């Protein structure tokens, strides 16, 4: 099934909701403007549709194979990566001084959506490279940066992130991999240990791979404060920049997974022969905090993945619903069978998918714009406000987009009926591929704890209350906008319910943290739905204005209003129910004896 980049929808969100022109006006972004972004989107769309989407099924069918440490990727992946690299997409957000294009996060995010939707497995390789690049750029010495960054930003040497070990998943304090000073005394370290779940840890698409590895130094304190970050290249790099000896790091095996089969998930072994050379990034024992600076970006990236895979699933479901003829249309005089898109429940399912995707795209891109403002806004207070907004929204975007991706791609299968359960239609691949997104880079549970703790309680709800006030302003505009008032009413009810849960969580977090934690994921979902509905309300107001002005494509703007109305009727009411669960549901989850579970 082919993929069509939703360029019009993306452009609408960028320009009308996320404030692309404001982002372009930030210092350092002078070279970017909406026309250039248009041109970039068009070309990225061609690449995603023409190169990445056609090999998506190859990745699923063939997966990767490993033979004696050598990983062979699925047919077409290597060639596609070379095209991707040569087209300069890897370095889109990379720092200009190392050969990147220095594009704003917001613009990069829009392009990443296309890569993720076209081929989620493929997109993970450049996404992880970006994360590794950022970690090095912010924390490594100039020497390490000059050796590795130009090659990583050009895409010649992709990067990986080696955090997880069998006993250290969500709890990285358990990391056991070791680093000892190299007896040669050259300042490098010898790394040993096993890392698991290493995405694109080994493959045949590049000459070298740059691993970022968490490990403990001999004298390191126990726990999270004793973890350091190291660069461990697959091939050592000579003084002149050429590739030297093969380093003592190898892929021991590939995981057998539920989805994203095109992406090799490696078990990596460091120092089997006692000779895995690594270089310390920044200061000793600061590794975890270095990782966390870019974990935020990575989490946002996974939020984009969730939304993107939902879009892919939606496109396939719509195409099937238009094509599949089955049963007469309800209430029609025509006795002949109709395309299933005419059936009310199929429409409900399609709109459930579509409205959530549009809400997620708006909220996600809003976060991207805030990320740019937090990085580059000239006014210190605005900068700080934007950073607080980013911090608050990231667990919501990550958690909500990916939890819903599971439901949305499941509806994508459902719309296909029995054929959805059959692999050949391809609907099932999206469903399986989506499943990991609510797990990796911190499960939804981890995101939700982060949200109610570090993001809500620790700042006494400041950012949450700012957002609730902004939602209220949109409510007032909607209620004064004639036929949009119905959206305003639904949004208002959701906003009021959320005020109560915020108060409840702030009151409970310290006194009864276990009770607060039971409500954390429902609260994350509640915030996602409320803020998504808020964005769609804004979209409806803008669309109404455009229609009144006779500007642009009327059908497009009318669809924005329909989508917002649907979301207000089908999604926003869930906020009040979630509020009940959050406020009154803790005891029932905690009272039952553990042995009875």
């Amino acid at each position, binding site marked *: 099934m082919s993929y069509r980049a939703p360029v019009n929808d993306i452009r609408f969100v960028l320009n009308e909701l996320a404030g692309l022109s404001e982002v372009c006006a930030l210092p350092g972004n002078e070279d970017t403007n909406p026309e250039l972004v248009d*041109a970039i989107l*068009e070309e990225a769309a061609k*690449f995603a549709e023409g190169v990445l989407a056609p090999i998506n099924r190859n990745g699923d069918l063939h997966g990767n194979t490993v033979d004696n440490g050598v990983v062979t990727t699925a047919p077409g992946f290597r060639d596609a990566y070379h095209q991707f690299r040569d087209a300069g997409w890897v370095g889109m957000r990379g720092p200009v001084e190392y050969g990147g294009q220095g594009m704003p996060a917001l613009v990069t995010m829009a392009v990443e959506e296309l890569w993720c939707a076209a081929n989620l497995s493929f997109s993970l390789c450049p996404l992880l490279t970006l994360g590794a690049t950022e970690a090095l750029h912010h924390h490594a010495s100039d020497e390490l940066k000059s050796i590795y960054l130009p090659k990583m930003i050009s895409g010649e040497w992709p990067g990986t992130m080696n955090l997880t070990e069998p006993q250290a998943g969500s709890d990285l304090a358990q990391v056991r991999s070791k680093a000892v000073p190299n007896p040669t005394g050259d300042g490098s370290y010898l790394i040993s240990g096993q890392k698991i779940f290493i995405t694109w840890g080994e493959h045949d698409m590049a000459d070298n791979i740059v691993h970022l590895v968490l490990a403990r130094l001999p004298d390191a304190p126990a726990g999270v404060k004793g973890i350091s970050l190291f660069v461990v290249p697959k091939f050592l790099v000579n003084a002149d920049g050429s590739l030297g000896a093969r380093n003592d790091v190898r892929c021991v095996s590939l995981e057998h997974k539920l989805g994203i089969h095109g992406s090799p998930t490696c078990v990596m072994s460091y120092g089997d022969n006692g000779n895995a050379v690594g270089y310390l990034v920044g200061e000793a024992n600061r590794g975890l905090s270095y990782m966390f600076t870019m974990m935020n970006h990575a989490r946002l990236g996974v939020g984009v993945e969730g939304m993107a895979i939902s879009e892919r699933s939606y496109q396939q479901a719509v195409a099937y619903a238009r094509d599949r003829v089955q049963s007469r249309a309800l209430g029609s005089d025509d006795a002949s069978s109709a395309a299933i898109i005419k059936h009310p429940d199929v429409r409900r399912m399609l709109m459930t998918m579509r409205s959530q995707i549009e809400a997620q795209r708006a909220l996600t891109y809003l976060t991207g714009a805030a990320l740019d403002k937090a990085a580059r806004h000239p006014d210190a207070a605005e900068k700080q406000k934007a950073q607080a907004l980013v911090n608050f929204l990231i667990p919501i975007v990550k958690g909500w987009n990916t939890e819903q991706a599971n439901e949305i791609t499941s509806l994508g299968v459902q719309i296909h009926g029995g054929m959805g359960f059959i692999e050949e239609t391809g609907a099932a691949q999206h469903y399986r591929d989506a499943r990991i997104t609510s797990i990796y880079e911190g499960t939804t549970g981890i995101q939700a704890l982060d949200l109610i703790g570090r993001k809500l309680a620790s700042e006494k709800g400041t950012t949450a209350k700012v957002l609730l006030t902004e939602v209220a302003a949109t409510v007032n505009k909607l209620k004064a906008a004639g036929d949009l008032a119905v959206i305003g009413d639904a949004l208002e009810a959701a906003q009021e319910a959320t005020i109560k849960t915020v108060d409840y969580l702030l009151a409970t977090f310290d006194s009864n943290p276990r009770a607060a934690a039971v409500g954390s994921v429902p609260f994350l979902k509640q915030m996602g739905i409320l803020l998504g509905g808020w964005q769609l309300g804004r979209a409806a107001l803008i669309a109404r204005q455009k229609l009144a002005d006779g500007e642009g494509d009327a059908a497009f703007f009318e669809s924005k209003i329909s989508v917002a109305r649907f979301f207000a009727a089908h999604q926003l009411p869930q906020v009040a129910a979630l509020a009940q669960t959050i406020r009154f549901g803790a005891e029932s989850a905690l009272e039952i004896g553990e042995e009875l579970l």
Partner: protein
Amino acid sequence: MKALVAVKRVVDYNVKVRVKADGSDVDIGNVKMSMNPFDEIAVEEAVRLKEAGKVSEIVVVSLGVKQCEETLRTAMAMGADRGILVETEAPLQPLAVAKLLKAVVDKEQPQLVILGKQAIDDDANQTGQMLAALLGWPQGTFASKVVVADSKVDVTREIDGGLETVALKLPAIVTTDLRLNEPRYVKLPNIMAAKKKPLDKTTPADLGVDPAPRLTVLKVAEPAKRSAGVKVASVQELVAKLKNEAKVL
């Protein structure tokens, strides 16, 4: 050697156009527009000739509304060196386009002019031929292979029943067919660089050309809907129907 490539901004090939309610034209009010695919092939060929050292400069020309600038920027992102926009709101027919291009050619003095064999909106397939006639230059149309050597160009043409190779003395006109090449994916740094390449603007009046249409469109209509078929019981009935009703036998 300088090459000049003409590019047209047309309705994107993925768009299903609709006829306006009054039957005067197709409705292209809010649809996606992009470079005519045959012209993309023309730009790609020029860029390949430049990469092979046969061409030293590529000038792209587009004629029409202001937004044709985007089409020119795309061509420059693919590798063209500079752009010329002949800006006009007037509807342009092939003869007017050929005359305008002749005026540009007179100014620019390229040795090679490459155009798409036709545009996917009006499918006229006339501009290249008309331009050749106006300039008095040789033409190689429907090219599936272009070899430039010294002062000539060998053009392999896609014709009914096979291929024909013609040798043209430069300067010459080449129009491209689909099999000539596969246009490249544009590189991100080149999109940025294209913004900074020179783009000159001129008008039909500046070029001394009256672009007024010579042909009048009487009516635009959707193709007739295909009516439902019938099942025949036997071969005999089918043959009878083909003979008597369809009258094709």
